[in-house]
């Protein structure tokens, strides 16, 4: 049995998406910038894809810019806002729980003398937008708050944060990479200026993303060259990936409610069962205000990677910390920011369900997990197996 519970790291391509992409690899392969028939055919497909994606978030097609993924979109939003700003001193507000695509971009900008303020979350992983008002300075050019966190799945109050920023004429960007699949996103209603997405998080292809940029927002370029994407993002248009992204988002939106309900139910049963049947387990992040497919648990006295590897040996794929940070010896910055102690932070596992997850699978996962935790605690110096209690040696 192989069970994939790492859908927040990446998702399998939907076969219908692949089908939509196929003609554009070998047959309708033209360069969308070419003016001959091959080019026009590709160009039409790209235009249609742009329209579909725009419609999915209630934007205009001209506000959709294709990038190589969520990371590039995040880099572009932040650096582009900085490059174009005429302020002598520049200030950006973001949060401690952002993805490395934001945090490491901020670290880079700090080297370039941009001042960054990192908001901290509550111990349930929520950002309080009311705190924003105290953080604005005359130099604040941008606020970037993620829509949903990639580790603990918490959904942030984007609408209120965007409103507060708008009142101060501060640009508002949101990294919606994790939110796209399950959340209804209407950029107009939410009042968002920029939004990042990445196709492979919603059963689309890897290597393609979008930055939504509201008409009128000025943005510098990250990648210079040809006149693609209305002159703002150069590089030969990857038509098959773009077509695939649009198809994937279209399907995601169409099936969203149905999938959310089903996955949410499996998710909740699983959390309840683990919390009631395995001792010393803690759920990270607010229980209600989170992505329907996210489970993030800390298993006291045992280390996350060894749990992950045991599950892997049983055919179950999960994540300890985020995939990018794998191989690092540091506990997750997100879990630590919740005030979780370092040793417990090292004991964290994320299960992220997907459209293919079944009840049978989750039963099996629960059983393997219970035995795994038992086995590993048996060899933990932090746990007294005889007494069934934790103790620090």
């Amino acid at each position, binding site marked *: 049995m192989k069970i994939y519970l790492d859908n927040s790291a990446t998702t399998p391509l939907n076969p219908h998406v692949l089908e939509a992409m196929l003609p554009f690899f070998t047959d309708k392969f033209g360069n969308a910038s070419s003016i001959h028939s091959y080019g026009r055919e590709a160009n039409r497909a790209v235009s249609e894809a742009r329209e579909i994606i725009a419609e999915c978030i209630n934007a205009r097609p001209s506000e959709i810019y294709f990038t190589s993924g969520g990371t590039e979109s995040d880099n572009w939003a932040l650096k582009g806002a900085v490059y174009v700003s005429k302020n002598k001193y520049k200030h950006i507000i973001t949060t401690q729980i952002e993805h490395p695509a934001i945090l490491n971009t901020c670290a880079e900008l700090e080297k370039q003398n941009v001042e960054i303020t990192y908001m901290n979350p509550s111990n349930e992983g929520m950002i309080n937008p009311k705190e924003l008002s105290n953080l604005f300075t005359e130099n604040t050019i941008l606020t970037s708050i993620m829509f949903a966190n990639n580790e603990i799945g918490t959904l942030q109050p984007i609408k209120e944060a965007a409103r507060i920023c708008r009142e101060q004429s501060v640009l508002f960007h949101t990294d919606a990479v994790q939110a796209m699949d399950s959340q209804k996103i209407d950029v107009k209603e939410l009042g968002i200026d920029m939004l990042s997405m990445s196709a492979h998080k919603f059963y689309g292809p890897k290597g393609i993303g979008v930055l939504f940029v509201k008409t009128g927002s000025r943005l510098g370029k990250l990648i210079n060259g040809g006149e693609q994407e209305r002159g703002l993002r150069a590089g030969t248009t990857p038509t098959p990936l773009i077509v695939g992204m649009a198809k994937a988002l279209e399907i995601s939106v169409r099936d969203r409610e149905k999938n959310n309900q089903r996955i949410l139910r499996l998710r909740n049963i699983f959390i309840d069962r683990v919390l009631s049947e395995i001792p010393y387990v803690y759920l990270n992040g607010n229980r209600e205000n989170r992505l329907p497919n996210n489970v993030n648990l800390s298993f006291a006295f045992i280390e996350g990677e060894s749990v992950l590897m045991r599950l892997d040996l049983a055919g179950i794929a999960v994540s300890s910390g985020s995939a990018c940070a794998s191989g690092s010896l540091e506990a997750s910055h997100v879990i630590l920011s919740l005030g979780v*102690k370092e040793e417990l932070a090292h004991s964290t596992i994320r299960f992220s369900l997907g459209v293919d997850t079944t009840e049978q699978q989750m039963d099996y996962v629960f059983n393997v997990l219970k035995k795994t935790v038992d086995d590993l605690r*048996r060899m933990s110096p*932090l746990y007294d197996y005889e007494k069934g209690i934790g103790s*620090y040696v």
Partner: protein
Amino acid sequence: MYNDKVIEIFKNPKNIGDLKDANAIGTIGNASCGDIMQVFLKIENNVIVDAKFKTFGCAAAIAASSIATEMIIGKTVDEALTLKNADVVAELGGLPAQKIHCSVLAEEAIQAAIKDYKEKNNG
């Protein structure tokens, strides 16, 4: 990542648990770094007649603990002291670069246990 031997040992580690009649215990690492290794030795006439471990750590840490305890059983205390982390890595058939420190922990845990033994007996 891990080679098959590391995976195999991680799957079925040897020498897990407390040693009731241990006369030497060494503990290295701390939970905030994500690794603690504890080695229990039973030493008779300067020979390590039994060794067990408890480990809070990744697959590499558990595999290193297991193989290291196996490597020292039957050795004299002085022989065991010459065990280097590179020996543990070699016996495991290699470890990913970022996991080498797990083999260092194994070496240090054994040395700590032997130090404990020497202090108790000579000190």
